[in-house]
């Protein structure tokens, strides 16, 4: 572990924490533009978080420690994931500790705690949201693993920095299997981040919401942390997507400071492009009925499997 690695780890974490709410603001802005509404300011999520931190928390009488701890656990899991996913540099001390499979496990940990906390209070909406979240989660997880395995087959390692090093810094080659993995990954990340074909992040209508239903009982700093965590989740998924499919520009293992600083504006540009694409997909598609979700995510899983098959067939 080098000093540069340690510093780039810190820088990457700070940038993830700072940029995540702005990414959500940017996606909301694009969505507003695309549907001809006047857009909220870019920093609106920050104002929201600040407002919530300044309020007094109201906790239900029969809430257990689980309910109070969950926001911190979920936030910590997402922040740790942000430290593992190589978004700026590949020389990350944290990334040595956890590979792609552990990363999926980290997301699962956050999901399980959020679902348990939603059921802890015992309201109908909380348990409904939790049930649906687990339902979507158990379908999305294998598809995400398959996407990561396709990339692992190419680079011969499940460690994300190695995958990025293989894809970005060796001789340029086209990997057809990544086309399948890319489509599958887009579908999975739409579902995992509670985006439109599966869930609508803007709705608070009882019968359709999934993610929001789980947060209904939270207020003040707890809610702020959970909102920030879901922004971080979107940021993490975007960074995984960028690392797998457009890894160019991420600073290489033994890179100097200049490369890491140069990677930052490139990351912002790529995230802006990704955010716009997300808003475009959300504007163009309609929300699916909840019982169509297995079909949607099943397609994602099969496409990811197909990617692996094509990889074996073409040897690339």
């Amino acid at each position: 572990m080098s000093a540069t690695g340690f510093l780039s780890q810190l820088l990457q974490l700070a940038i993830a924490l700072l940029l995540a709410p702005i990414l959500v603001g940017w996606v909301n802005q694009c969505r507003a533009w695309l549907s001809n509404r006047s857009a909220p300011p870019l920093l609106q999520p920050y104002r929201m978080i600040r407002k919530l931190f300044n309020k007094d928390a109201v906790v239900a009488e029969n809430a257990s420690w689980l309910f109070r701890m969950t926001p911190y656990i979920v936030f910590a899991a997402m922040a740790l994931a942000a430290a593992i996913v190589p978004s700026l540099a590949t020389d990350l001390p944290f990334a040595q500790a956890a590979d792609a499979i552990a990363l999926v496990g980290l997301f699962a940990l956050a999901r399980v705690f959020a679902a348990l906390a939603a059921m802890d209070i015992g309201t109908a909406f909380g348990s409904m949201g939790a049930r649906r979240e687990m339902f979507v989660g158990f379908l999305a997880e294998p598809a995400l693993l398959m996407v990561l395995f396709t990339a692992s087959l190419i680079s011969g390692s499940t460690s994300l920095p190695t995958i990025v090093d293989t894809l970005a810094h060796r001789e340029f080659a086209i990997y057809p299997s990544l086309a399948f993995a890319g489509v599958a990954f887009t579908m999975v990340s739409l579902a995992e981040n509670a985006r439109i074909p599966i869930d609508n992040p803007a709705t608070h209508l009882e019968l359709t919401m999934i993610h929001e239903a789980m947060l209904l009982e939270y207020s003040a700093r707890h809610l702020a942390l959970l909102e920030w965590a879901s922004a971080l989740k979107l940021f993490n998924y975007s960074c995984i997507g960028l690392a797998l499919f457009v890894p160019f520009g991420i600073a290489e293992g033994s890179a100097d400071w200049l490369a890491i600083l140069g990677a930052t504006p490139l990351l912002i540009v790529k995230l802006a492009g990704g955010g716009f694409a997300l808003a475009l997909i959300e504007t163009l598609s309609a929300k699916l009925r909840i019982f169509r979700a297995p079909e949607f995510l099943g397609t994602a899983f099969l496409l990811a499997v197909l990617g692996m098959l094509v990889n074996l067939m073409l040897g690339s």
Partner: protein
Amino acid sequence: MPMNIPLWAQLINLLAAVLLLLAFAMLAQRRVLTLINLFAAQGFALACSTAIVAFATHQPHLYWSVGLTLVLKVLVLPWLLHRLIVRLDVKWDVEGLINIPTTMLLGIVLVVFAFNLALPISQLANTVTRATLGIAMASVMLAFLMMITRRKAIPQVIGFLAMENGLFFAATSATYGMPMVVELGIGLDVLVAMLILGVFFFQIREQFDSLDLQHLEKLKE
């Protein structure tokens, strides 16, 4: 491994993957309109790969085949199909005999089967892009599956056309093209088949008031 094959062969591998991806998307699609657009996109991918083969192997006669594919499969046939569904008023309904997730699972099994089948065959070939033979066979079989599992006439015809796309891809990319006469023949065959089937659609609907081909299985009223 991808390192030691030239860039144009890598591009063809990529286009093969796109072709298979589109075949799968067609298998999963419920709407006729989107089905037609996907078919046009598949034709475009096919034209691109043929153009790359023509350029890389210096076979100018393949450019004719590119033009034929572009005009027929990207413009004329989708346009004919669009006009047909507007006049028959069947924009939305695609009904399968088995539900879509099961069809997709069958599709995966077929892909594995096709890959296994093509592996020994493609080892006999000496072209750089021989590995795409399996993908071409898989997309032929997926189109076949679509023809079998769909109940209505128009998706079955699109399945037929998509099958021809897969065959054509096998011919051009895996083996660098067929004689010009054969290509012309196949291209015109498809066009004529489409025109005749178009007439059939109207006759079937006149007779049974629907495009459900199950009505054809009964001999008498």
